[in-house]
């Protein structure tokens, strides 16, 4: 399950977002993550993002090369720095901060709130 949105060719445009979302099949959590990132991208990065969704069940080789430990994981490969966003991306504020779309809140770089399993 590999989907590409928008234009397929990777332009060297430093402003263009290159995102990869690693999910596990069609679990509700995976589906939720895909839905969430799509919404964020459409809202904040219209026409300047490439999103690749990778099912690690089908492509386990990526897990090692991309250093994926938890799922879902969204890897922002461009613009630099590379950053990983883990979880189902339901915390939009953190997603935006993680993608450097909005400035990071001053208080903490890493949230202390705990999520229920």
């Amino acid at each position: 399950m590999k989907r590409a949105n928008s234009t397929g060719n990777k332009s060297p445009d430093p402003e263009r977002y290159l995102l990869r979302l690693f999910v596990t099949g069609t679990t509700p959590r995976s589906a939720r993550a895909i839905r969430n990132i799509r919404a964020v991208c459409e809202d904040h990065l219209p026409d300047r993002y490439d999103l690749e969704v990778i099912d690690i069940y089908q492509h386990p080789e990526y897990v090692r090369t991309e250093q994926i430990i938890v799922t879902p994981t969204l890897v922002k490969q461009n613009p630099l720095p590379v950053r990983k966003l883990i979880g189902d991306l339901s915390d939009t504020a953190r997603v935006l901060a993680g993608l450097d779309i909005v400035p990071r809140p001053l208080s903490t770089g890493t949230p202390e709130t705990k999520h229920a399993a």
Partner: protein
Amino acid sequence: MPAGLPKCATGIHGLDEITLGGLPRGRPTLVCGGAGCGKTLLGMEFLVRGATQFGEPGVCLSFEETAEELASNVASLGFDLADLIKHKKLVVDHVLLDRSLIEETGEYDLEALFVRLGHAVDSIGAKRVLLDSVEALFAGLNNESVLRSELRRLFRWLKERNLTAVVTGERGQSTLSRHGLEEYISDCVILLDHQVTETVLTRRLRVVKYRGSTHGMNEYPFLIEHDGISVLPVTSMYLNHLACNDRVSTGVPALDTMFGGEGYFRGSSILVSGTAGTGKTSLTAHFVDAACARGEKCVFFSFEESADQIVRNMRSIGIDLGRWVEKGLLHFHAVRPTSFGLEMHLVKIHKIIEQVKPRIVVVDPVTGLLHAGTESETRSILLRLVDFLKEKQITALITTLTSGAIAMEQTEIDISSLVDAWLLLRDIESGGERNRGLYILKARGVAHSNQIREFLLTDHGVELREVYLGETGLLTGSGRVNQEAKDASAVILALQEIEKKQHLLQRKRMMLDAQIAALQLDLETDEQESQQLIAQEKLKIVKWERDRGDMAKSRFADKIPAQHVKGAPVRGGRR
């Protein structure tokens, strides 16, 4: 089901003995301990030995070190990870978890880790897994409750896939591992530890629990050396050494004679005790020399002198140990007692013995080890050593230095009850000189001499002499030589006396013989004379009777008297 629990041999020296076969097969084992105590090395050795010795490929998920770091770390143990990886016997996957690059944005699970591990396992058909150290996840991820439930799932997953896993964990303040991994891994827990006592470091290993199996309960010292970890299963539980009836020569013929003519029992432990300079090392050198001459391998553990020094010194009494070293029959292992802890010494001794597989071992002197530990420790170490040597059927000569202050027949560490034979070397002071004496204090199962022998160190080795027991008491050295000279001259005198007496007797006999001959001659002359007289008389009688007959004829007597040849009683006999 203690007998039936399948085990997975680690191949780690000593660990399989303690666990009676290895780690529980198809289950995770927790290895925990403080920083730098060898958790990762143990885990890696488990994988490498599995891949090289047992045909079981392994996967290492390393959360702390990169594959390169790991490879260079274990290269010092002689493990070539790159080669194993190339031959698909090993996968090393460095799991990088950089918190500063991670943003948590919602619910997640560790499914990716499962996929990652599963992929690695499937790619080489792995049977063994090392997770080092999974607790790093706690540092990288915030959601502890997710982590806990996922770890629980991970260990279950490992079991379902029948993977034998080693999971390392940092030791916590009051718990075995900082994040309580022992709650999830309950099959087998091994605790590593290192202690520094009096500046000497000792690493120890303890099997805290092993569900469904008996195991050694104690703390076992272990060593990280150039070829891996060695754990020392120190205390054997039973006394079931085989007793050998073979004998080995002591190397000193006179001493063999003292031991019933044959020497020590093979596989026995012999203690040689004595004060300084009584010739303990020389005695062991003889034993070693004789053993090497028979082609037996020997290991000489020296805690006082260097190998060169021993070889040189023994040359002075005519024993060339150097040639045996060159031939590879004799191995010296000289080390300062204080260089490391007692148990490390024991581990080293074990290791060398395992490698060399000698038939003869010399420990000279065992008292040197006292400096490395307390008395009770030394005693227990010696017990273990003697046990171990007996198990291996190795004949051991152990020397011990007794100080003059304490009773001779009490060794400093009281190991006499452990040994089978005990030779005591002592000084005998008399006549302004100091000489050496040797006697056998005990020899189990051997009809041994109860005599004290004088012990001489000559340029052709040790000699045993009978001591002189005379009216003046026990004499040794020049006193003995003196007395022996005196004795010798006395003997010569006595011999001369006997000769004289015999001479005298001879002469007497000759004189008597002469007398007898003269007397006999006398007798013979007498006899002859008497015979002549008798004959003359007889003739007279005959003549007389004839004369009488003639007379009667002439007178015409009518009666002629009956003829009497012999002494007719006519006129009565003349005699």
